[in-house]
């Protein structure tokens, strides 16, 4: 049994505590937006936020997560795709196959939380997710666009 707070909702989930968070999200919580890519925290397709920090959920057992820690998945980033990162992604039509993009978006949103105006080096250092279609340059541009729109809306 695990008690987890996912997208603002506390859930009791019947599961082996060693199960990685990724599979609890996908199979018990029914949140399949978070993707399985490698299982060893290499590719970032499984990135979610735990207390606002980008975390690769495929190699993190749910036993390591306290019930008051806030887990946010792509489904919970915004109710309607209105998060500045999602909006920037839409404006620049970033995804190709799209499989890695939920992880990319979650990683980008966490980066902007900690570094509202990231420079190229910040982006290169923090966004280490793998994309095989080749969206990297548009991901970079969308992060910068999201940073601008977020700061503009704060000023406004």
């Amino acid at each position, binding site marked *: 049994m695990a008690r987890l707070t996912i997208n603002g909702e506390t859930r009791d989930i019947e599961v*082996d505590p060693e199960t990685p968070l990724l599979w609890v999200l996908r199979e018990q919580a029914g949140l*399949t937006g978070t993707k399985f890519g490698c299982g060893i925290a*290499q590719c970032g397709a499984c990135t979610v936020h735990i207390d606002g920090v980008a975390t690769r959920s495929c190699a993190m057992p749910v036993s390591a997560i306290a019930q008051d820690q806030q887990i946010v998945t792509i*489904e919970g980033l915004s109710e309607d795709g209105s998060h500045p990162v999602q909006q920037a992604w839409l404006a620049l039509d970033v*995804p*190709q*196959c799209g*499989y890695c993009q939920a992880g990319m978006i979650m990683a980008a949103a966490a980066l902007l939380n900690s570094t509202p105006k990231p420079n190229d080096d910040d982006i290169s250092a923090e966004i280490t997710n793998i994309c095989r279609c*080749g969206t*990297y340059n548009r991901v970079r541009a969308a992060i910068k666009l999201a940073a601008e729109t977020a700061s503009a809306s704060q000023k406004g």
Partner: protein
Amino acid sequence: MTVAIFSRRKFLIGTAAAAGGLSLGFHVPFAAQAQERSAIQPEVNAWVLIRPDDTVVIRIARSEMGQGTLTGLAQLAAEELDCDWSKVTTEYPTPGDSLRRNRIWGSFATGGSRGIRESHEYVRQGGAAAREMLVAAAATLWKVPANECSAANSVITHASSGRTVTYGAVASLAAQMPPPTNVRLKNPKDWKIAGKPLPRLDTPDKLTGKQVYGVDLKLPGMLNAAIKACPVFGGKVASFDAAAASGMPGVRKIVQVDETAVAVVADTWWQAHSALNALPIVWDEGPNTNVTSETIASMLREGLDAEDAVVGTAIGDARAALADSAKVVTATYSFPYQAHATMEPMNATARYTTDKCEVWVPTQNGEASLVAAAEASGLPIEQCEVNKLHLGGGFGRRGAYQEYVRQAVRLAKEFPGTPVKLIWSREEDMLHGAYHPVTQCRFSAALDASGTVAALHMRISGQSILWPLRAEVRETGRDPAVFQGLRDGGTEDAFGYTIPNLLIDHAMRNPPVPPGFWRGVNLNQNALYVECFIDELAHEAGTDPLDFRRKLLVNHPKHLAVLEAVAERVGWEKPPGNGIHRGLAQIMGFGSYVAAAAEVSVTDGQLKIHRIVAATDPGHIVNPAQAERQVEGSFVYGLSACLFGECTISGGRVEQENFDTYEVMRMDQMPAVETILMPSGDFWGGVGEPTIAVAGPAVLNAVFAATGKRIRQLPLKNNNLGV
């Protein structure tokens, strides 16, 4: 029944070959639509459904795997339909429906950069035919001649009476109209929807987690399976101790799937995966345990000198000219195995009953998946169906080989009526690929006193992708796909350089590692070999590499035009910035002309790729924004292979099992890419693959400019250069 038209076997071969990008001829039976038309009311014809609320549903048979084909084909149909683009959605027809309707949607195969270039005509005709039927319906309603009515933006207008009606209002009546036997297609210069950089139709769901990929499918009562096949190629299951894992949580059954693989079926995938890892399996590793990368390299080296070789291109007498030449330049190159490494691992879901087999699968070839379902279920193909799901990457892995479908069906047969979803682990995916084949290449060139290439012999030794797929290749030892980009003329992939004595031949050597179509296919290494060696010859002749190519490309203006375009944009005639060095490459492949210029620096043994300029002439461009993304993405795929990509073999198996050892390009290594789209009209070339082939050689030629070191053995990381 339509299936009787072609035998199962013929169909299998046809779809397998088509998946890899070979032409599969078929006739799209437009005139037959009247008899074949479905009873679904809002269906105007097979391509177009229009609902009463004016929503337009365009059916797309090719698969969307990121390349934008779904949006591009919809643009083409919508253009001819003259509909309101904001009301357009798409759906996949099923391969089973297509069979029942005399293959009305043509080929489902999505490979060889053929998604648009091979279906644009009948998809446009489908849209145009629907428009004419809608207009005819309105004319019938108004009792006026159809030629007095016009259509635009989903509205039909009778100008003289001022009457208008929307498509949705006449769609049912239109479906009753006789389909036109001939339709006139628009001139591309009049396009309003096609040819425009419209946003993709499938983006919004990819930003919120809503998009359902194969791994995400949920069906009522569904079980989940994990699988392990013998990691050694050609090995089998000897035994396994089911009792050791059958009591683990959630486990329903432990199944030997076929000779080579064992699977655990459980309530959840994580339970299945955990039990499989705890399951002791003894492998009979078979005859290949002594195979290593070195034994394979040695097998290929022998082919470089073999007497016996299949000739691809022969002009003049290269051997005699080389024998007579005062100066012969030689070089040997090699290109290693590559894994596709799609982000979504292989998977399929199946539900079997004694009279029906249904499969849900992300596939590049729905018809090949259908054949696999029929074979594995043992049911007639008419009783099988495939539901295509979005692909988390394809790159050629999800076409010709459909073993995950067969495995899922075999597992589903153990649980009649219950759907079973099989997902491969990343390790399974890496160990059981259909790998980019391995080749070596030896060049011998005769340079005369004026620095002209008087003769060139290019000997390729290595693996054939078509050998496992086609009997005639096995019988003759001739694989035409090996000569991609090296052909003497033609509209697909003509060799651009005019050399009076030219011999290109292939000694087929097939190691026991399964080959497959890998985005870019054989154009990748052929372009790398040729473009690096041409660069070598230019330096040998003391000529600027651009001038050297200009002279050789004099008879191929389209090859030259893309090269000139990148040279101009990169500023070839001006010296680069401090510490920056440049390289060039060009090739024709998949019906398109492509070129790249790279700017790199090498500082303290560390390579940095600063900037890429790429040009492509695919004849026509249906969506320039998507074409740009394909060109950009090509550098990620091509440079991942060039810099790091390598599956090494030891003990008859692949050594890399995950992204920790199979490195791919990440954000920090990605150069800026400037794309020049220069469609010259009159032909239809592919976009998704050709540019990959120039990514590697442009960078390698720039590395030579920077270091004076010619890298001939890939990947680059094995050459004492930090990447």
